[in-house]
């Protein structure tokens, strides 16, 4: 167990290191240097001024030192939770990210958890009820296959623009300041619903279909056949099938995270939902690579942590993994 844990930690640390190094490269790999990109957005009335600016800004960005030093500075920044300054928003990157994170989490966590739980339940139910299966299967496929952007556009058009049941965009009404008051909370919930629904539906389709297929497979496995041969109740067989089918779904969850995060970016862009995804979009269109760097680092850490937790949880849930840790006994 300890060896396994150690190996996992090392793997994740190496992954983190590589991913972070690539992340560091974002502003540095860009053609031109960040200073020129930055200066490019302002109206400078004399060339002498431009040269003077270049010097000052290079200092501000810390790009006037050798590359290896920049790299070390970056790591020191990461460890101090300081990702530099967004030149698009003229504020610390961590500050901007902190504002966006609650929105993204409010979208992602319920969407992932609910779609996972409901998808698994309904998928398992569909696996044994022909009528339900005939409904769940096509709908599940449609949701699973729909591009995030399209589902978001379609929901926005029909439910927001046409029927006006929900607001079509933003995280809350422009006039209502964020805070713990009912006006804001109600407005935030109304704005939250459609983006949530988009992410939820696509993920839900995937989980339901996956679970349906897995349960069907599990019901066809040898142990299920054996139990049936010995007259075990349907309930027991299904319980076993469900339990075993959930295991691969759980590791699928780890793989799905990256995809959901990607889809979430698109969804937030469609709904202009003020989360990290939208921020990424703003950072891309404004070429604010320091902001981009910070957000990606944040996402990388999030995805890695989630993967790590799932890995560990998996070990606790699936006895088979524990075997490979302790080594063979037979």
């Amino acid at each position, binding site marked *: 167990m300890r060896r396994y844990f150690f190996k996992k930690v090392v*793997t994740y640390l*190496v*992954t983190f290191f590589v*991913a972070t190094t*690539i*992340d560091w490269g974002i502003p540095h790999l860009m053609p031109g240097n960040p200073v020129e990109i930055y200066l490019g957005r302002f109206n400078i009335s004399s060339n002498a001024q431009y040269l003077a600016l270049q010097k000052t800004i290079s200092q501000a960005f810390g790009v006037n030192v050798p590359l290896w030093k920049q790299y070390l500075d970056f790591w020191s920044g990461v460890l101090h939770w300081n990702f530099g300054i967004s030149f698009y928003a003229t504020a610390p990157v961590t500050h901007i990210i902190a504002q966006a994170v609650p929105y993204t989490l409010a979208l992602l966590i319920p969407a992932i958890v609910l779609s*996972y739980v409901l998808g698994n339940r309904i998928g398992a139910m569909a696996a044994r009820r022909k009528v339900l299966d005939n409904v769940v299967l096509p709908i599940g*496929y*449609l949701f*699973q*296959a*729909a591009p*995030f*952007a*399209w589902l978001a*556009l*379609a929901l*926005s*058009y029909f439910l927001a*623009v046409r029927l006006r049941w929900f607001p*079509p965009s933003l995280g809350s009404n422009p006039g209502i300041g964020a805070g713990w008051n009912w006006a804001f909370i109600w407005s935030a919930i109304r704005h939250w619903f459609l983006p949530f629904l988009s992410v939820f539906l*696509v*993920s839900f*389709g*995937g989980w339901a279909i*996956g*679970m349906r*297929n*897995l349960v069907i497979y*599990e019901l*066809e496995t040898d142990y299920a056949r054996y139990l049936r041969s010995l007259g075990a109740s349907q309930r027991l067989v299904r319980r076993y099938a469900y339990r075993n089918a959930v295991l*691969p*779904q759980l590791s*699928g*969850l*780890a*793989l*799905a995270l*990256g*995809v959901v995060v*990607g*889809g979430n*970016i*698109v969804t937030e*862009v469609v709904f202009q939902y003020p989360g990290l995804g939208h921020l*990424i979009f703003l950072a*891309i269109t404004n*070429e604010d690579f320091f902001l981009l760097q910070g957000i*990606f680092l944040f996402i*990388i850490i999030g*995805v*890695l942590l989630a*993967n790590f937790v799932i890995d560990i949880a*998996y070990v606790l849930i*699936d006895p*088979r*993994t524990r*075997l490979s840790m302790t080594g*063979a006994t*037979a």
Partner: protein
Amino acid sequence: MSVNTEPTGPEAQAVAGNAGAAQVPVPPGEAGVMRPVPGGGSVSSVMQSRRRWEFMYFAVRNKKLMLGLVVEAVFVFIAIFGSAIAPYASSKTFTPPGLHPSLNHLFGTTYPFGQDVFSQWLGGVRDSYLVGALGAVSAGVIGLAVGFAAGWRGGWLDELLQLLTNVVVCLPQLVLMIVISAYQTNRSTLFEGVFIGVTGWPWVARAVRAQTFTLKARDFVDMARMSGRRATSIVLKDIAPNMASYIFLVFVLLFASSMLVAVNFDFLGLGPTGTMSIGDMMNLANQWSALQLHVWWWFLPPGAAMTLMVVALLITNVGLDEVFNPKLRQQ
């Protein structure tokens, strides 16, 4: 008898589970496909031809497979002959802009550009297929190679390749795409497809690795090895054919997921330059307020086409799965 040759835990399990992974529709339950085919061990030519016949027999009778293939065939037709049947050049403008769908403009025209949506749509379908095929081939080749190598060699190579796989899983594709797109001022569809493949192979590698592990442990491979054959020859001649059906399913799913990833890229403006893909159409429609202006014919058809293409691929996949795996055949 050792029982530990099969990899267990998340890596092995991920293969099937991933079905849930929204939008990267990894083999819905290839758990079954992964299972060694009965009798796969010593296939005489007679049996093989019989199985081939059997495959065709079940294939043409599988409703899901046939439905999926028919829909797919329609879109493939569009993809191939789209430019021939396109009524207008996709950049040609008509006044006034924003025409409703009609016989002249099946999907109306855009607003404010006044371009024929149907003609753009035809080209978008073609580009999507191109990206899907390129992505599937490149991800498939890399995933198979890495998975085979890791599963067959094991040891330090396995550890190293697993680490590589892990890193690629955790790196958002978007990050790389953004960095690269800043360099590649003119990005082609070819580039996008290959890029998606090069960053999208990890689950294939994981699945193939697990599969290779189980196959490696089986008698016929042992026998081949004892007879002194080279590893590559065993992998290619004994293991690969046994995984053929599985590999085929993987390609179908890679195809679908590559197209979906491309839509995301294109929608964010990171797609190929100078083309009009499905994602570009939705991006433009969104940016040019097609929702608020009720120009629904601009953004609904492209996404619907993509959804249909992917659904058809998924259904094809399930159908094939049922054909390959007798246990799943409908009774």
